[in-house]
């Protein structure tokens, strides 16, 4: 009996995986945010985080191709992409604006940036997820590519890796700059 169970187990595990696939494929979980691609940035204006005098609003995203990066001191994956953002900042590759999301403590975000470095040009504080909901963000980190006219052109879900930057984001940014 026990022995037989061991031989059936792989089939059961596969059935679970397959069911997830079936749901995952038909549901198209990214359908909601994709609505925002190629539409102007939603109206929003966020206060600055502690220690800065300027926040972030829709008007700030016009005039130049930029990235809007959703982060938070509580977000582990944000720490993963952080060194890459710092490199981009050092290289002056593209202005990166930050939305500091869901901080319960007003010191947490600034402390985190002081510890790991601050790659952001402008930062908006968004403890109540106002702008973040308007952007259709589902988790952190998430990064939007915004063109000169303040139109969202791409959304990167999850940390930016060197590969994603080289293969997707950098070419897109260069193209948007030429437009």
């Amino acid at each position, binding site marked *: 009996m026990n*022995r*037989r169970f*061991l*031989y*059936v187990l*792989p*089939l059961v595990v*596969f*059935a679970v*995986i*397959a069911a*997830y*696939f*079936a*749901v*995952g*494929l*038909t*549901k*198209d*979980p*990214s*359908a909601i945010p*994709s609505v925002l691609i190629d539409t102007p940035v939603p109206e929003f204006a966020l206060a600055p985080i502690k220690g800065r005098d300027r926040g972030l609003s829709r008007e700030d995203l016009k005039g130049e191709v930029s990235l809007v990066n959703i982060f938070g001191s509580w977000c*582990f*994956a944000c720490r*993963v*992409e952080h060194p890459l953002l710092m*490199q981009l900042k*050092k*290289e*002056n*590759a593209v202005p990166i604006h930050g939305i500091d999301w869901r901080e319960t403590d007003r010191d947490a975000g600034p402390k985190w940036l002081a510890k790991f470095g601050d790659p952001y040009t402008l930062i908006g504080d968004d403890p109540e997820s106002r702008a973040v909901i308007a952007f259709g963000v*589902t*988790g952190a*980190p*998430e990064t939007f590519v915004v063109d000169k006219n303040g139109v969202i052109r791409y959304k990167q*879900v*999850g*940390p930016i*890796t*060197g*590969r994603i930057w*080289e*293969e997707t984001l*950098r*070419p897109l940014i*260069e*193209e948007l700059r*030429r437009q």
Partner: protein
Amino acid sequence: MIPEAGHFALTLALLVALVQASVPMIGAHRGNAAWMELARPAALAQFLLIAFAFACLTYAFVTSDFSLLAVVRYSHSAKPLLYKISGVWGNHEGSMLLWVLILSLYGAAVAVFGRNLPPGLRARSLAIQALIAVGFIMFILFTSNPFERMLPPPENGQGLNPLLQDPGLAFHPPFLYLGYVGFSMAFSFAVAALIEGRVDAAWARWVRPWTLAAWIFLTTGIALGSWWAYYELGWGGWWFWDPVENASFMPWLAGTALLHSAVVLEKRDTLKGWTIFLAIVTFALSLLGTFLVRSGVLTSVHAFATDPARGAFILVLLLVVIGGSLALFAWRGPSLASTGVFQPISREGSLLLNNLLLTTAAAAVLLGTLYPLFLDAVGGGKVSVGPPFFNAVFLPLMAPMVASMAVGPLLTWKRGELGPALTRLWVAFAALAAAAVLAWAVVADGPLFALVGMGLAAWLLVGTVVGFAERVRLFRVPFPETLRRIGRVPRAAWGMTLAHGGLAIAIAGMIGAGAWKVESIQVMKPGDTQTMAGFTFTFEGARQVQGPNYSATRGTFTVTRDGRPVVTLHPEKRDYPVERMPTTEAAIHPTFFGDLYVVIGDAQGSEGAFVTRLYFNPLLGWIWGGIVVMVAGGMVSLSDRRHRVGAPKTSRAAAGAGAGAPARA
């Protein structure tokens, strides 16, 4: 006209595959020799038809026939010939055609070289192979037809992603596919054995060469991809735990486990169910690798939403192939009785341990790769599982595996003794300590795991050599006797020694490059210098150069060490006007102790200043060197006459004749 001929040949191949999947299977069931024999000509015909279809598509790419949609999308008349050809498989449709071409190539190889296989097993496994082909050819014909026309034809093509215009990447997919698809042979043999209800040492001996060949190709394919990422992406890294890489790494882990469990099955007639299970899982992971990455399910779900037919087809195909074989396994598996018994401390025990660690590692990578998708499916929001997860899970699994790899070959079959084996490994213990101390002396402020890792790499390398020395009784018998024994060492044993030693070298490289990498990013004006890792880099300036289908900014760096010139490096930043896409060409100076790696970025201001990235990657070349040794080990082992498909009978006779000497491999 030629594309239509290719399309027609592919349709014919589908019909042939249908016949090959059914008639020999029924023949094997009824014991009808003529029906079983049909599998061989059918496999050859199927291969020739698909090869013809592939040749037609290649012709269309080479002659830039822009009436074909695939050529328009993925080629351009200004592209060098090599990349016109690699463009054939640089897209979804063409790559699927390459997939079935390789699938039928393996089938044809069994038809030609498998003369000594029992007719029933040969007929059934070729039928299973054809069944897979039926699914894939239908997938191509109904959802991903590479021969689709585009009328009227445009003036020129839309080019190929310039990142992909690279020799490393041109040959990466074919090798990867030769590996992925090669595991289909082990799968077909496993399913055929389940249908027959018989798995024995002879079966394991027939499966091993195919698995070994697939492993060699997959290892090469993964290494080519990684090498490409290293010099082309320009971030100084060679492995990103990216879904694309993970997808190829999972079948590698499972396939490596399969290679080792097949050895146990062959020698000791045990681990039968487990070996069959691994054969199924390895191919299942290969399918997952082919589909989920190519179709973009893992990277962006959009690809599926835009083409639901393709997604549904893939899902059904996975369900039938993987679900069907696992159901068969659940039904027939328990009847496979193993006869060999063994103690935990034995050669079998150590191989089983390695199997468990490898499959756990594969499962962990699978979990990390699919977890975000799963969470999405249940509405749990998005999470990302990055390199920290993989490193945290992977390293603790690999450390005991490497530690036991040196011990296993010194244990005897059935029941071994740990004490004497460890005593013989005293040199390896000394090497472990020496390597850790040396690493600490050179890089005192590095992470602790690097010291442990270097120690383990030395342990494995020296332990492997000790294992070989034991085999030839070095210093225990007079030297001429040792020489005589070296001459008699079977090639499979040479192969194992090389592969394990190669892994030790590669691990040292991975640890070195991972833990001790030095990098420096800054803006440099012409004449500026930067010192890093003992090297002084002087930026001499940059100028514009013109390539065949790109223009580039080419920087010049002179590198000196203690005032003596080392090398002049020319990194480039290329711009491909047709695709409007930039690429980075890192300049790399490999040395024995590490790679100097220089990247030029964007211009800053008007004084000729540029962003520059400088890296020193310690021991990185050892990764490639180690992998080359591993692959060489695989090839040597494959050339062992006991593995030759035609040889089993004679080899068994020889083994019988020399029964006085214990069989060791």
